[in-house]
């Protein structure tokens, strides 16, 4: 498969792994944070931990859009879905995320009109084919998905669509990284920078991490070779005492970002004064809200939502895991009360959540001597 197999070539992977071993100083314990949930998923899925030397510790960051959403926002969305006149549309990732009264999927099973869409424009189609209903699109994601929501709102406006609105939960990546760096208990050496999000914002917004915080950051793709190559680049910077922003994912990420996408976002969204993040608390100017000119398509303007702050279940340590302070398996509920089938927190639900990734790919794992001889 083109654009995939090249980045999974076993001999290239082995070469990169050897290079990492050569570069890693055996006396130093490296703490490298992968910001993006997509990277966490890839690291587990491809078993990359087995290939890395033990003194390279990968810390999972806050870049999972579903995970950082506090439960109160899910409750607010589902309160809108309770309106019998509403079709509630969301991405598949959201469907199993628990709210206080159950997940969107459970609301669907109870007879609420909850639909999975694959793109926000599908929600527009839903509105066009169901003129007697009001379609609410539950928008989530970092800058990766925000442009498609922006284009959808522009389209809704140009169509004059009256039965469609967006419940906006878009957040921005930079304040989250800043919050992590401000956290006193984090001692990080370097960052594996988000890939998808950077296709939109480019690499410049990370420059302060290198310049002010003196931490190397490499914007990285999602294949095994991308990740290993990025670690090589970070180790080289650390060895040479450098701290710069590098772009490993050049085949997709332009240094300056995607101007058209940024323009659409600026037209439709403005920064919220503050927004609550699970685990990180309230962060000022960390999320997007819909501009006044689009108020007619803003669910928060059209519906009354409870807007109640819901704290996570006490025993759950989602916040600590999100910040990278705890590993998933160090949470008291991991694998017991909280599992993919009965998730207590969103990190166990989303394919990008570190708990789900750890549970699915590592949990119950023991070292198995792989001495199979299948060459029959």
């Amino acid at each position, binding site marked *: 498969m083109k654009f995939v197999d090249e980045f999974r070539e076993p001999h290239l*992977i082995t070469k990169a792994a050897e290079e990492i071993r050569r570069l890693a100083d055996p006396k130093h314990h490296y703490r490298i944070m992968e910001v993006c949930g997509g990277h966490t998923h890839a690291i587990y899925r491809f*078993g990359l931990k087995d290939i890395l030397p033990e003194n390279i510790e990968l810390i999972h960051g806050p870049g999972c859009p579903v995970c950082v959403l506090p439960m109160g926002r899910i409750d607010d969305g589902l309160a809108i879905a309770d309106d019998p006149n509403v079709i509630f549309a969301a991405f*598949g990732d959201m469907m199993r995320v628990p709210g206080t009264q159950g997940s969107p999927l459970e609301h669907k099973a109870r007879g609420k009109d909850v639909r999975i869409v694959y793109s926000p424009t599908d929600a527009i189609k839903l509105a066009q084919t169901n003129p007697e209903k009001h379609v609410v699109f539950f928008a989530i994601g970092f800058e990766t998905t925000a442009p498609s929501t922006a284009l959808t709102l522009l389209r809704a406006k140009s169509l004059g669509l009256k039965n469609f609105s967006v419940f906006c939960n878009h957040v921005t990546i930079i304040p989250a990284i800043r919050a992590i760096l401000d956290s006193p208990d984090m001692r990080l050496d370097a960052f594996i920078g988000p890939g998808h999000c950077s296709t939109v914002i480019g690499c410049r917004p990370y420059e302060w991490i290198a310049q002010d915080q003196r931490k190397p950051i490499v914007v990285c793709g999602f294949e095994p070779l991308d990740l290993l190559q990025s670690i090589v680049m970070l180790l080289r910077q650390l060895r040479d005492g450098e701290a710069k922003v590098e772009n490993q994912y050049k085949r997709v990420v332009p240094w300056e970002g995607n101007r058209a996408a940024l323009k659409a976002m600026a037209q439709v969204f403005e920064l919220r004064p503050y927004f609550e993040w699970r685990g990180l608390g309230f962060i000022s100017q960390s999320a997007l809200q819909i501009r006044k000119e689009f108020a007619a398509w803003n669910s928060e303007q059209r519906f009354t939502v409870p807007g109640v702050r819901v704290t996570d279940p006490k025993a759950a340590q989602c916040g600590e895991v999100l910040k990278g302070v705890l590993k998933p398996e160090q949470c008291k509920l991991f694998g017991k009360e909280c599992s993919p089938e009965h998730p207590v927190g969103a990190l166990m639900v989303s394919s990008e959540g570190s708990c789900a990734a750890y549970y699915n790919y*590592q949990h119950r794992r023991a070292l198995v001597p792989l001495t199979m001889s299948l060459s029959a």
Partner: protein
Amino acid sequence: MNGSQPISAAAIRFRDAQIEMAHGAGGKASRRLIEGLIAPILYQGVSRTLSDAAHVDVGGHRMAITTDGFVVSPLRFPGGSIGELAVNGTVNDLAVSGARAEILAVTLVLEAGLETRVLEAEMRAMAQAAQRAGVLVAAGDTKVVEHGKADKMYISTTGIGRAIPGVCVDPASIRPGDKILLSGPIGDHGITILLARGELDLAADLRSDTRSVLPLVEAVAAACGSAIRWMRDPTRGGVATSLNEVALDCRLGVVLEEERIPIRDEVRGACELLGLDPLHIANEGQFLAIVGAGEAARALSALRACAGGESSAMIGEVCDEPGGTVLVSTRYGGTRVVDMLVGDPLPRIC
């Protein structure tokens, strides 16, 4: 069976307040529902192995019986249709239990308003599939429900078969070192259906793999019947779920070699785009077999020599540890756990 025996409350472990879609998706939730509620009540405390078909002794003959319901949407899709699935699915459940399907009984649940030509097409599809599989449709029932109370048509088929001589599948007979065989590429059916629903704006030249696997099972049985420990057709929940079930049943581990698992580029591509694991995707024309190590090569050549079995592969083996777990070794020496499917496979956003 002792019908008067009371069912202990402890046997009913299913605590979910209501039935969700996940309970029908063939993964973990389905297993909990069946083992925690349905089986304890219907089997009245009699312990039975839950497998694809039950084998019973009828007048000295070993017979097998199974039943299956089909609710696929859309009714027709590239490579097959609900009628064809309804025959092949039941024939396959019997086949992997080590039996040859002889007789089918069919129940149709039709929604008022269903076009006659649609029903006729499905009946023809069933007749053709039955003829191909060498099975007789001997009995049936038809019910019609109000418009909106069903999705066009549902089919349930019950199959009775005769045990294939010399084949005795039993997870308890599985030993470390046994090999795992797979009859062909995985994920074709599930991805075809996902694309045929037209919600994804994705197109691929893919067809459902629906077929009777009986000829393939018989080929292995003829080559080394007594070495077959276990077989399963990995339908909903995919290869991962079937192998997790057997790993739990025999308390041994299963290790797969990722690069040996046959899979078409179209299926891989769709799974990459949607964030799905092909090991969780449904198949309707493949089967998995665990065979004794000494006979594995012979079983594989027999499969490959059979029409439709050319791309069969030996994909892994059974090991002592970790018990009850399925591991995949990646192409670069890493490993990961592959769990049962939880819920329905839902595409990710980014």
